[in-house]
């Protein structure tokens, strides 16, 4: 296994929203429905201008000039006594028509070329991109003025020209989206089927580019309305007295000191229209991005009311051993998803003793990584600890302030993760990054920090530390990067190292080296390790104790030999038997059917009962507590005797 799916809760049926059409999702958000509703209303109103307009937009009434709103003239009148509302409605027609022409021209040019260049690449792509460069360097307004001169003040010609000229920018964005989609494996799969390029573009590339196309279009529409009104403001559009929004602004500018109100209706409407297009683009971008993330920008707050703790399981004889460094009890963690709050961890508890290594074992969805992050207060913004306690050296961490946590991170508890490369900033040399970490923990001079960095690199057994410090992260291999990450973690001489799947992304030979390194460091420094893993081999190699997690609960905890020799929870036994090592070659592996149920879909009572071969009626009756099974062991199963019998 090289990667495990992120363990943040994504209720599977929820993701279906992504396909219900962008329009529908946009209209379901308040911003989207307001902006969309406004634009729809505006379009209808201008289309129906002959019906809706209270007066002829050209009819002058010199008895009523520069009036403010009244029951007769809803929005007032201009300097020639013409009804402003009617002029706005009629003036909307060339404005929106101009936007439409511009948008269509832009789409016709940008979308086919963008998708084609992005998907095909090569010489065609390079040629089109050079043309784009040239087009983008052309001063748009000069060209527009030229076009208006040649085509006798035709706004349509100007807007189409604008659309074509600004297509270059949209083309680049669409090309970028198409290039990303091209990398997807399903496109390779379609190519292998022998589908033609045109078919692939229409069936697989274009649908995925829809989102960016809509965003670009609405942002362009906002620009276009500005340009259209700008041109008519300059008197370049339809000649007066025919109403245009820009023309109305122009007229109001003349009488601004005498009648400031005149500016408000036209100016306000233009501003609102631009805003509505902008918001619409924004919402579409959010909606299309949301289908790829689980949180959708939600932020959870820790619940104030804490729930009753589970009766403590005092494992007999445990007090005599090494002191408990980290004690986690009844830890509840919830994530706020677009579909409500989901409890991800329920009453998780375990101890990490000084100098020992606890393995937190489970599959994706078990909550093992969330547990590790919750201990450090590093949950994502939409997750929060809603109950229970995490005590490190007797100090409560769940209620610790940001400052207190910062003091403990690094010097008390350090973290290494699955992807060491991500933890390193590609724009700084290794030496500089490690030096920064060292100086953050200890106030030492640059020279002393440099010596400490070399010492740390020596400790993680990197050959030639002097040379490594001068390299950038992308110049070293994944195994070396993990060593650097371990060096950074050791910089504060932590008492506890939390290692979240530290070897999952590495090759087996490198994994063996990293595990050996961790073991050696532990022997030298007496550091305790909490290792999160799905790999029984890693557990057998490095752990002294094991806590097995399933669907957000610890289901079994025991010393490592006992877990391998006599698993005391049916899930542990099942997970162990699922390794191909445990079945004779080319015969079926004893696999449990189904998958770990996602939060929100967990069965009542024992959470494993729906997949458990030992399940009986009483498993569903109540929440199963952690029960002691022999010395130093607990199991969340009421039928451990049956498990014993089946052995």
């Amino acid at each position, binding site marked *: *296994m090289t990667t495990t799916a992120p363990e943040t809760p994504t209720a599977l049926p929820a993701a279906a929203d*992504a396909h219900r059409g962008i329009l529908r999702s946009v209209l379901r958000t308040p911003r989207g429905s307001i902006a969309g509703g406004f634009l729809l209303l505006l379009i209808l109103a201008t289309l129906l201008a002959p019906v809706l307009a209270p007066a002829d937009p050209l009819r002058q009434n010199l008895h009523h000039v520069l009036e403010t709103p009244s029951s007769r003239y809803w929005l007032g009148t201009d300097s020639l006594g013409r009804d402003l509302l009617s002029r706005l409605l009629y003036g909307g027609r060339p404005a929106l028509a101009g936007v439409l022409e511009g948008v269509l021209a832009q789409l016709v040019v940008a979308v086919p070329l963008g998708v084609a260049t992005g998907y095909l690449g090569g010489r065609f792509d390079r040629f089109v991109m050079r043309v784009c460069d040239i087009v983008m360097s052309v001063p748009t307004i000069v060209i527009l003025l030229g076009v208006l001169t040649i085509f006798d003040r035709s706004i349509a010609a100007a807007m189409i020209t604008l659309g074509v000229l600004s297509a270059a920018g949209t083309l680049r964005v669409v090309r970028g989206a198409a290039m990303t989609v091209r990398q997807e494996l399903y496109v390779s799969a379609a190519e292998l089927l022998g589908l033609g390029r045109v078919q692939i573009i229409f069936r697989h590339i274009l649908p995925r580019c829809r989102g960016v196309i809509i965003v670009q279009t609405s942002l362009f529409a906002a620009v276009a309305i500005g340009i259209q009104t700008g041109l008519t403001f300059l008197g370049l559009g339809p000649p007066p007295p025919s109403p245009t929004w820009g023309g109305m602004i122009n007229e109001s500018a003349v009488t601004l000191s005498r009648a400031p109100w005149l500016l408000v209706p036209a100016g306000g409407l233009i501003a609102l229209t631009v805003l509505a297009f902008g918001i619409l683009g924004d919402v579409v971008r959010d909606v299309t991005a949301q289908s790829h993330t689980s949180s959708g920008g939600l932020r959870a707050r820790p619940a104030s009311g804490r729930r009753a703790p589970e009766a403590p399981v005092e494992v007999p004889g445990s007090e005599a051993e090494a002191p408990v460094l980290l004690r986690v009890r009844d830890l509840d963690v919830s994530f706020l998803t677009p579909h409500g709050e989901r409890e991800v961890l329920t009453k998780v508890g375990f101890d990490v003793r000084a100098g020992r290594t606890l393995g937190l074992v489970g599959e994706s969805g078990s909550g093992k990584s969330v547990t590790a992050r919750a201990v450090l207060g590093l949950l994502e913004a939409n997750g929060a600890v809603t109950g229970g306690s995490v005590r490190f050296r007797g100090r409560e961490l769940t209620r610790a302030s940001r400052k207190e946590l910062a003091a403990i991170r690094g010097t008390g508890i350090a973290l290494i993760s699955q992807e060491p490369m991500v933890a390193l900033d590609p724009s700084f040399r290794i030496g500089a990054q490690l030096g920064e970490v060292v100086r953050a923990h200890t106030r030492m001079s640059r020279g002393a920090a440099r010596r400490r960095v070399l010492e740390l690199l020596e400790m993680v057994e990197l050959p030639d530390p002097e040379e490594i410090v001068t390299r950038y992260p992308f110049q070293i291999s994944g195994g070396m990067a993990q060593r650097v990450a371990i060096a950074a973690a050791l910089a504060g001489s932590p008492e506890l190292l939390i290692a979240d799947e530290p070897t999952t992304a590495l090759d087996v030979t490198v994994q063996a080296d990293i595990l050996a390194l961790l073991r050696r460091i532990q022997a030298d420094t007496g550091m305790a390790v909490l290792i999160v893993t799905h790999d029984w081999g890693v557990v057998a190699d490095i752990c002294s104790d094991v806590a097995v997690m399933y669907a957000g609960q610890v289901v079994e905890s025991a010393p490592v030999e006992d877990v*391998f020799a006599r698993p005391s929870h049916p899930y542990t036994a099942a997970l162990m038997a699922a390794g191909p090592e445990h079945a004779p070659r080319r015969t*079926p592996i004893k696999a449990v059917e189904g*998958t*770990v149920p996602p939060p929100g879909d967990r069965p009542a009572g024992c959470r494993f009962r729906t997949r458990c071969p030992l399940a009986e009626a009483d498993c569903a009756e109540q929440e199963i507590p952690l029960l002691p099974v022999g010395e130093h062991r607990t199991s969340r199963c009421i039928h451990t005797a049956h498990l014993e019998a089946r052995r």
Partner: protein
Amino acid sequence: MSAPVHETPGREEAGLVIDDLVVDYPLGRRRHRRAVDGVSLRVPAGRSVGLVGESGSGKSTVAKAVLGMAPIGSGAVTYGPARLHEAGRRDSRPQEIQVVFQDPYSSLDPTKTIGYTLAEPLRARADRTGTPLGRAECQDAVRAILDRVGLPPDTADRYPAQFSGGQRQRISLARALIVRPELVICDEAVSALDLSVQAQILNLLLELQQDLGLSLLFITHDLAVVHHIAEDLVVLYRGRVMESGTAADVCRAPSHPYTRQLVMSAPLHSVGGQRERRERREAMTPPPARALPLAEACPFTHRCPFAVDRCRTERPALREAPHGGRVACHRVEELPDWTEPFGPPASTPHHENGTL
């Protein structure tokens, strides 16, 4: 059983034959990286062959070369009469060869229903051959293949986002199988899956192989997986074949120092057994040399505890190995005999009877 993987391929053989394949990826002007360096292997009809190696070993590039997704520098790739190395990138590939990729998340188009995705190969074939494809016929085929991979019929109307990784991998498998291929290439097809889901998919693959007479080219970095599913095994290191033979032989009695290193690095699922394995490994791992070996050397010299001068100046050819397969090592006769516990019997007695 068909002939083992390591024999010289004859002319017009059934199955996939890769002969002295070289793939170079360009790295800017006039420079290139040799990803695959003279690899030969065969996947005879009905047989499952494992291709194992670490990252950078070129194992996925071999698959890409077969599928026409990597530039073939020299060498030959044939499938029966089809000469795949001569086909262009845009030419249609033989539909007898299908592929399942590693990433269950990007291998299905999120904007299309599963039914659409599964029917696409059928439609593509209908377009190519000009035979009309009935709607009912298409739906029947989709339903049948979903049933075959153990998914309910209503799967067809749903979208990929509604399925877990394991279910998506079943769907990918269904898409590969719907055109009734003879050979399925699994490129790390179970690597991203959880242990229990991986077991389900491995069981399904074995069942399908036996029921449909499929051949499998199973590409993975996981020795335990490949030992379980493959009959023959080819070990790659930095683009070259280090060792080949039957999977059982290569895993239990690896000849090449690299294969031994690989076997010893995979931790056993047993505390005592793993302790022993770890100690043996530590005893025979030399401190890594800094410089990578030159092109004309054995690619493993910088990490090999048995390397001598000859290894650094002369590239070893594949020859007969003690276990009957082939190995590329100058010193194979001089190496100490060595067997490693692998699989259930010796290493983990308490799981023999199985608990579930």
